[in-house]
């Protein structure tokens, strides 16, 4: 009896379209734009130090709060530093802080949420109540608590900031991924894995995580956008990045008093941040859609 079902024709069609260019062209347009923005930021972050007209820390390159001119593309700030140079040279710091901290938060929160949602019962209840408590503390207050607990010698260091952001964001991400896990555990493929007697980690890794990537990616994009603002807010309280480091959030808060007289000093870093957030979101959104074949639609 020869009823073997052949699917050769289909595969043939697929291989033809394997060329890299045609594959890129098939990607969602939003994702390509997002990727373009991110590549641009990465380029600026890596090379910025070499082609900026001034050093970010050079005081008195012009009068304070100068208007944009050919000499100072985006004007100057309160100390007469060149805003354009500062924004460009701050890119690597912002990318480093935002991405590492949110990545860390996503890993911790994602694992906690998935495991908690899968295990359920008593463990889930305790874990989620703790998460609720952490979420209920306003994040600035929580950040202040953590930084002051860490002691003065660590204050202002990047490692501490990354840890603080991760600690603040992880519970929020855990909540999201737990909701996904709760939905997934009732699916038959998870039941099938349970009847095989697979371990918790194996189920979380092989069955749950691949289906939660969409949600996690979108969450990552949104959180990474907030991270620099959070850093800026901490900086405003004197607990974030120390001046004169050209971190955008810090720049926004430093130049805030002059928002009317020299709007560019505030808007330039804000705009840079906004475009980064848009780029990140377009990219992660596209990724989530590209990975589309999940049990859960984002």
């Amino acid at each position, binding site marked *: 009896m020869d009823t073997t*079902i052949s699917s050769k024709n*289909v595969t043939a069609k697929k291989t033809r379209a394997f060329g890299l260019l045609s594959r890129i062209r098939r990607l969602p347009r939003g994702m390509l734009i997002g990727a373009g923005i991110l590549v641009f930021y990465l380029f600026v972050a890596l090379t910025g130090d070499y082609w900026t007209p001034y050093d970010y820390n050079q005081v008195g390159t012009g009068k304070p709060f100068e208007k944009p001119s050919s000499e100072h593309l985006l004007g100057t700030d309160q100390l007469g530093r060149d805003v354009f140079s500062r924004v460009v040279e701050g890119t690597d710091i912002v990318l480093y802080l935002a991405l590492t901290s949110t990545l860390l938060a996503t890993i911790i929160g994602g694992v906690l949420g998935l495991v908690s949602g899968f295990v359920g019962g008593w463990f889930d209840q305790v874990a989620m109540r703790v998460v609720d408590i952490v979420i209920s503390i306003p994040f600035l207050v929580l950040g202040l608590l953590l930084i002051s607990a860490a002691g003065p010698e660590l204050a202002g260091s990047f490692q501490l900031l990354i840890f603080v952001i991760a600690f603040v964001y992880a519970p929020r991400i855990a909540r999201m991924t737990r909701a996904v896990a709760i939905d997934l555990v009732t699916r*038959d493929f998870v039941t*099938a894995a349970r009847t095989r007697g697979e371990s918790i980690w194996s189920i979380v890794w092989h069955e749950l995580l691949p289906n939660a990537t969409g949600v996690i990616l979108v969450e990552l994009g949104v959180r990474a956008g907030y991270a620099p603002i959070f850093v800026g807010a901490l900086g405003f309280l004197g607990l974030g990045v120390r001046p004169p480091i050209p971190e955008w959030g810090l720049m926004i808060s430093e130049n805030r008093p002059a928002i009317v007289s020299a709007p560019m000093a505030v808007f330039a870093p804000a705009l840079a941040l906004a475009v980064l957030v848009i780029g990140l979101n377009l990219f992660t959104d596209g990724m989530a859609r590209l990975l589309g074949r999940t*049990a859960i639609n984002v």
Partner: protein
Amino acid sequence: MSEYITGNSKTVLPDVSPLIEIQELDVEYWQQQDWVKVIEGLSLQIFPGETFGLVGESGCGKSTTANAMLGFRPRAARYTRGSVWFENKDLLKLTEAEKQKIRGAKISLVPQNPTTALSPGMRVGRQISETLLYHRYCKDRKEARERTLELFKQVSLKNPEKIFEKYPHQLSGGQQQRAITAMALACNPKLVVLDEPTTGLDVTTQAQILDLLVELRSRFGITMFYITHNLGVVAQICTRIAVMYAGRLVEVAPTEELFSSPRHPYTQGLIASVPRVSKPSRKQSLLLRGLLRRDELPPGCPFAPRCEFVHERCLQEAQVLETVADNHQVACWRWKDVPIFRDRFYRDVAIEYERPINLSPDQQRLLEVKNLVIGYGSTGKGRFFKKPPSIIVDGISFDILPGETFALVGESGSGKTTVARALTGLTPYTKGEIDFLNAYDLTQPVDKRTDEILRSVQFIFQNPDASLNPRQRVSKIIGRPLQRFFSLSGKELRIRIEKLLEDVRLDQSYYNRYPDELSGGERQRIAIARALAAEPTLLLCDEVLSALDVSVQANILELLIELQTRKKIAYLFITHDLAVVRSIAHRVGVMYWGALCELGRVDEVYNAPSHPYTEMLLKAIPEPDPAQQMPHMRKDVGLIVTDMKYACPFAARCPVKLGVICEQQEPPWRIASETHMLRCHIPLEELPDRLSEVWQAVS
């Protein structure tokens, strides 16, 4: 003027103009950056008073046709050619406002899934009055309410006033479908489009709904357009049938003629694929081969790749419907060469696999279940507030022999699936004895089981869409149990996966694919391969066929039987479909409300004496043969009278209930033969007579 007969009623096809006419319709869908033709050159006419059936596999364009008939264009669809004429208007050209006046008032729809079709936050009665008020069929709320109550009575809903005030989730599936039917009938439409109205329902409920439709049709003379994949249903209710394949009609004929002499090879295969209760033998060579693949259609006849009569011309040139007899049209170049169906069907040697089972009592049992009680709810482990678990299965006993297929049948909610879940250790409360291989105790929960038990008992789920991880490739899905139980890796693993794919008759090209690139039947094959990977001795099959098309069902059924013959695996086969059971099972247990009411070999259970419930289930199956009319007796028989659970669980629905004894005393097991027993207060000798009396009295 032509005349044809369906069942008992004579219908005359008048020379009047059709009520609705589709002309040369082309529909395209936007799929992966391209317009794909879903329906091509569809023309059909429906005349006033007839019930026109449209059958075909899933994905052939049935529901798209229904949409066109309502003038509805779904998102990502476009009508590139053709027209739909209704009352001298082209529905596809009307404005949205004009269409809204027609929809619900003149043409109405009974959608597939009543649960999603009713708005969950609105009382059922109001949803129907809303339709009436919107179309100004009733002038105020009071009048609308009266009309709604009247409609509820017409669709045989008991206590219309109570139903009016209820929310959809408070109604049973059958009641919801009745309410939806009432909504469709609300404004006295000329045409009712029924899109698989009974697909999600139990056989008994389906029989009741079909009965209701027949009654409504004779009372109000409604024209119906009935879409279904179930050939049994169309045979029972339709007067004329069109068979659709890949967006084209391949055959149109009056019901009698279509079933007695189908001309198109596809129609023949489709009819032969349906498992029958009365003729259990399978016709191997008549079964449809392969699958409907939209991406592999030749420029000519879409069925050509699967057709055994295929000719060069078929591949090149598309054929059109051609009249072969009165009212009978076929779209096939070679219809003259296709042998007559009856000859093929009866001359064909039925293939029976040798699967003899020694049922003697001293035979070693693979699985022995005694007084199994299963419940959900509290496990009662050291909690402050112990709630008694709600019992789903209440004391059932059966056994399974090595290499045997034991089927559990019953309606939804009878506890069949719960039994299978208990055997895999997934139920929180399991009491009683489950003895596996005389060595293991299967009442243990899954996390306490040894690898040996986990491996030996495998589960195949109802819906392959949900049971395969959408983010894993086929190789990983099948590979996981191999890694888990046999610690295979590398080349060895690959060879085993390929061997398993071969076992389920899929070629190597499936190795790297994702489930969403497969059809339903292929997915179920992958699910079977995954279960086989563990080399089980007991395979629990939970409604493995119900999510599949008839032709695919027949092939999967073949596959399961063949695998059993080769690998000597025992199946616990759970299904609601008694016709399927007849083809695969050695023994059957009939379950009602958590208890077994009949147990025996297949041929014994399907013949008298049988339990009143078994009899009711058997009578409710629509046979794909218009000559075998279902008895019209279900209107009052078999409706649940109370929610009380009596000593005999079936007492509340039993048509031959004796009286108080059924409510208060547990019925005794009556032994019909060494292998056959049933549980009833009525002595075995009296049962068949009493039952036939009842059917006669109500029909």
